[in-house]
């Protein structure tokens, strides 16, 4: 009796830890995309954005019969910088990929990481999502012009809340907005929150003058009228939402948060093509289409060198903002 209980517990724990990989067996159709033993690193904790993207992508790739048994694992730390260092250290490993996004670009810079995304092999950008500028329904600011006029007058008195730490997407968006409106980013009173959820309470309770976070976080609150949408930060209006872009309102901001996949440096051409091919096939699969819809992600597929150029350009813009802030 006394041995059985701990054993049962150990069994239960193993079931929890080993269950997901064991249960997800692919259909096994040979399509030339098989990469046996492929591992997909998530540089964030389970349940975060990169984690959901990675696990969804792995599941869809298996369901579409593209490859079996992709092992998704988490290596969180320093906003993704720990995972990035590990990935760069796996020189020439063609069986590893990492889920990442704009947040990792910022974290690598603000942590002064010796390894940056320029050291990785870019595979593809998968999805994107604009940020939204929102206020509580009873806020005095009815439109973006009113808000920015007041903001310009006294940046310190109008705290802006965002769902990421300095260097992250929700920090960059208001900084770019400030710059376009002629406010020195250093003057911006940015209050970081642990994700859009924690931020929500402070916007609703008018603890911050306005909030900036991903559109997916607040879709429902905007539709129910709890939050007033003042503007979106992307080049186009957000689907299903009635709010102008910053650009049409006269502020030159083009900001979207995005997520993608990178691989270790030093891959052979064949290895790189194989990974890119797998991601391309995944992108074309009906399973992925369905996932985009259910998660409300915008398709932003971009592969290879074009994605590499995009990464370099994003890095530059992050560095310029951080430099202005003196970080």
């Amino acid at each position, binding site marked *: 009796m006394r041995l059985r209980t701990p054993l049962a517990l150990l069994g239960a724990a193993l079931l929890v830890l080993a269950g997901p990989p064991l249960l997800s067996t692919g259909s096994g159709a040979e399509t030339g995309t098989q990469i046996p033993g492929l591992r997909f690193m998530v540089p964030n904790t*389970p349940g975060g954005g990169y984690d959901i993207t990675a696990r969804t992508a792995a599941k869809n790739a298996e369901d579409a019969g593209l490859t079996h048994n992709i092992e998704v694992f988490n290596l969180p730390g320093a906003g993704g910088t720990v995972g990035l260092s590990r990935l760069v250290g796996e020189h020439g490993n063609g069986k590893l990929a990492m889920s990442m996004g704009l947040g990792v670009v910022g974290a690598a810079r603000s942590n002064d990481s010796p390894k940056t995304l320029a050291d990785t092999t870019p595979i593809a950008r998968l999805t994107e999502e604009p940020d939204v500028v929102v206020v509580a329904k009873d806020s005095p600011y009815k439109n973006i012009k009113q808000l920015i006029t007041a903001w310009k007058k006294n940046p310190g008195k109008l705290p802006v809340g965002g769902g990421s730490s300095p260097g992250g997407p929700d920090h960059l968006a208001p900084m770019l907005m400030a710059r376009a409106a002629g406010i020195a980013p250093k003057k911006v009173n940015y209050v970081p929150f642990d994700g859009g959820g924690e931020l929500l309470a402070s916007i609703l*309770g008018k603890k911050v003058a306005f909030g900036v976070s991903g559109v997916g976080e607040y879709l429902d609150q905007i539709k129910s009228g709890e939050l007033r949408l003042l503007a979106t930060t992307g080049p186009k209006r957000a689907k299903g939402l009635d709010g102008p872009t910053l650009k049409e309102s006269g502020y030159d901001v083009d900001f979207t948060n995005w997520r993608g996949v990178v691989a270790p440096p030093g891959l052979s051409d064949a290895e790189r093509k194989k990974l890119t091919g797998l991601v391309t096939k995944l992108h074309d699969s009906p399973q992925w289409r369905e996932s985009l819809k259910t998660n409300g992600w915008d398709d932003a597929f971009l592969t290879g060198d074009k994605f590499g150029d995009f990464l370099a350009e994003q890095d530059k813009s992050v560095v310029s903002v951080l430099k202005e802030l003196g970080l």
Partner: protein
Amino acid sequence: MNAFNSLMDGFGTALTPVNLLWAAVGVLLGTAIGVLPGIGPAMAVALLLPVTYGLEPTGAFIMFAGIYYGAMFGGSTTSILLNTPGESAAVVAAMEGNPMAKSGRGAQALAAAAIGHFAGGIIGTILLVALAPTVADLAVDLGAPDYFAIMVLAFIAVTSVLGSSRVRGLASLLIGLTLGLVGLDQMTGQQRLTFGSLQLADGIDVVIVAVGLFAIGEALWVAAHLRRTSGEAIPVGRPWLGKADVKRTWKSWLRGPFIGFPFGAIPAGGAEIPTFLSYVTEKRLSKHKDEWGKGAIEGVAGPESASSASAAGTLVSMLTLGLPTTAVAAVMLAAFQQYGIQPGPLLFEREPDLVWGLIASLFVGMVLLLALNLPLAPVWAKLLRIPRPYLYAGILFFAAVGAYAVGGEALDLVILLIIGLIGFGMRRYGLPVLPAVIGVILGPNAEQQLRRALQISDGSVSGLVDTPFSITVYAVIALIVLWPLLRKLLVRGRRSDADVKA
């Protein structure tokens, strides 16, 4: 009345055989996860997410809720028996529960904890049904200054559990606060005490600190003394709660939820602070003050009841506002989004079957958990019959697995051992361990709220006391601090009155 009817419909959903099965799977897994240090409910739910893709959302969420409540139940088991908390919310259970277990009253402590969880969960869920919209509004009205006031209150409360020696208690608290400083400054991204290591940039996880100080420290301590004391097992006493025990604890079981529930609903709450506050409240109100620190059963019953009720409070904010107040809620929120369901103001109208089925399943899950844990209490208590060398070897093993599971970093094991050595040193010099753990939990939280409050007020100190709520809390704090002084003055006043009359 409307809520009641919907709840009845919810029971219709929850009591179908399939959903009942998911609830059972959830509570079993949750209990197991709670028992293992390091693997928390948040991680368990996140890892199970991909497996549940194929499930119908109602079934999946019933299972997740079972895991959440189950982990609350399980977390206190190892706290009580082995002085090794499985979750940070179960730290307080070790305070009185472990001395009880050592004196052969382990089964009673476990039963008090299990019934406490049951009472807390049931009352918390009733409050959830009755008060969801009101509590959700309150949660939004509170801001950083209010949270900081609550943290100050918690710190003041903590100083009263500092043990026999205030100086040692404060020293322990400072060790905890220092450990809590490690990592990136949340407001500016500045690195503190990381020694340039990226692995330290996210700070040291509370679980590692708690497991290191409690489990490793305890194991080293026992090992160091094994030769001198007999290696015999701890006696296991009577298996059930006696009448006297129930008489002492029923009020604690009922008080806990009213402390735990509101804290679960507010964004900076969580389950830890209400357990501390409940412990302090029970200690103040107890008629058996001499037993505290040596195994007072109220000290197990109250906090455990508060921790389960806070889980119900967490669900209020998540379901009605889409506001995650704990890590588990954040993961569950992500799960909702995967099913294309957005928790928030419209959820109750859009998905009534899911929501009310979920709430009804909480009641069902609570009954299942009680039925599972109460008979298990004497069985668990028999664990202590394992001879100590084997028992503590097992604890070391599970502690290491748990610490590794937190982040999958080998460095965490090194940190765990270092903290274990600190824990050993603290025992050697009579420093209580709990204040250090509380420092790690409260320190970063309080700092963040203070700085956020000051930033929102643009640096003006008056921003800390500009809400009615924060002023009320500070008034309560002032009263607590000044009470001994006031009482003395009052007594003296009365005495001089009497002198005059005489």
